[in-house]
């Protein structure tokens, strides 16, 4: 047995987290999570990620919705 490190994608709007094997580009992770890239910003710590950024295994990224209603 060995420990498979995954990428954790936290979806702030849905208050849930998903895990995917890496490395993967941000745009591919968003597609897997069913999120349209133009409706969110993606962050890792204090860094803002572009959609072509490659996320490594073991990383945690936050997907923050930018759409406000009302």
């Amino acid at each position, binding site marked *: 047995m060995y420990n498979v490190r995954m990428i954790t994608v936290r979806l702030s*709007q849905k208050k849930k987290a998903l895990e995917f094997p890496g490395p993967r580009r941000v745009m591919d992770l968003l597609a897997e999570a069913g999120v*349209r890239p133009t409706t969110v910003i993606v962050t890792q710590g204090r860094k*803002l990620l572009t959609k072509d950024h490659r996320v490594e295994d073991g990383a945690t990224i936050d997907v*923050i919705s*930018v*759409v406000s209603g009302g």
Partner: protein
Amino acid sequence: MKCKRCRRADAAVELPSHHAAFCSDCFFVFFRRQVTEGIRKLRLLAPDDRVLVCVSGGKDSLVLWDVLIDEGYETEGLYIDLGIDGYSGRSKEKVLAYAASRGKTPIVVELAKEGIPIPEASRCARMQECAVCGTVKRYFFNRVAAEGKFTVVATGHNLDDETARLLGNLLHWQRDHLARQHPLLPGEDGGLVRKVKPLWRVSEVETAAYGFLKGIDYVTEECPMSEDATSLVYKEALSRIEDRMPGTRIVFYKGFLDPSNPLRKAPEAAAPPDAAGTPQACTACGAPTYAETCSFCRLKERVRKARTLRAAKVTR
């Protein structure tokens, strides 16, 4: 991906609608230029204005306040506590924290103390929460501005908000609303203070990115009352179009604002449909209105009647 402006740093923000990508520092320059150009082109603000910035704790209004402070405008923040369990408290915390970080203390209006918290008012008046919220906010924006001798009220409506509203108005052929839709609503004699939307050129993604990169701690959760807001449907439709054809939103809105567009009048002529001359004082509260009593007082009266009826049922 490298920054398209300095060509040295890695890009932090990509903007397909501008065929551009920027590092943090260059994005700040780009964003502020978009806002200041929006202000200059439509003459939204003068250097000596006293600006009342309406802040909700969300990204757009706090970013607007931040940019206006950095641009040297004299500003004060107005926060309206809507009386929504949990959400209002968390939003208020963000506003107070941001204000403190800039050496400011916002003006706070608590709707519960005013006797008209949004959830209850909406139930009593049998109106959509967003409609009640709009009426109440507009009333207090103007009242606080007039009482505080502010020359202008600024709100954080962005390009996505304005194009969603435009699409809704077009789909329903709301000609009166189309005539009045503009980032500048001039003030009028009788106590109506000028209203402006300085973020009309920037998108929600851009304000969110600016807020994040500037370290502005804004509330990311959505207002629980706005889940079924029709504006979200229009926003999604426009967002899907923008995905396929970047830049469509700004072309759509700039085309609408073109003075030659027959669908809209010049801002000076944009008075409400029932307007007859200048607004008169509301017979109940004295606020400017084109009717006998203002829409806020009419709403309060509906709420009062519903409460009286409910109390009578309970005592029976």
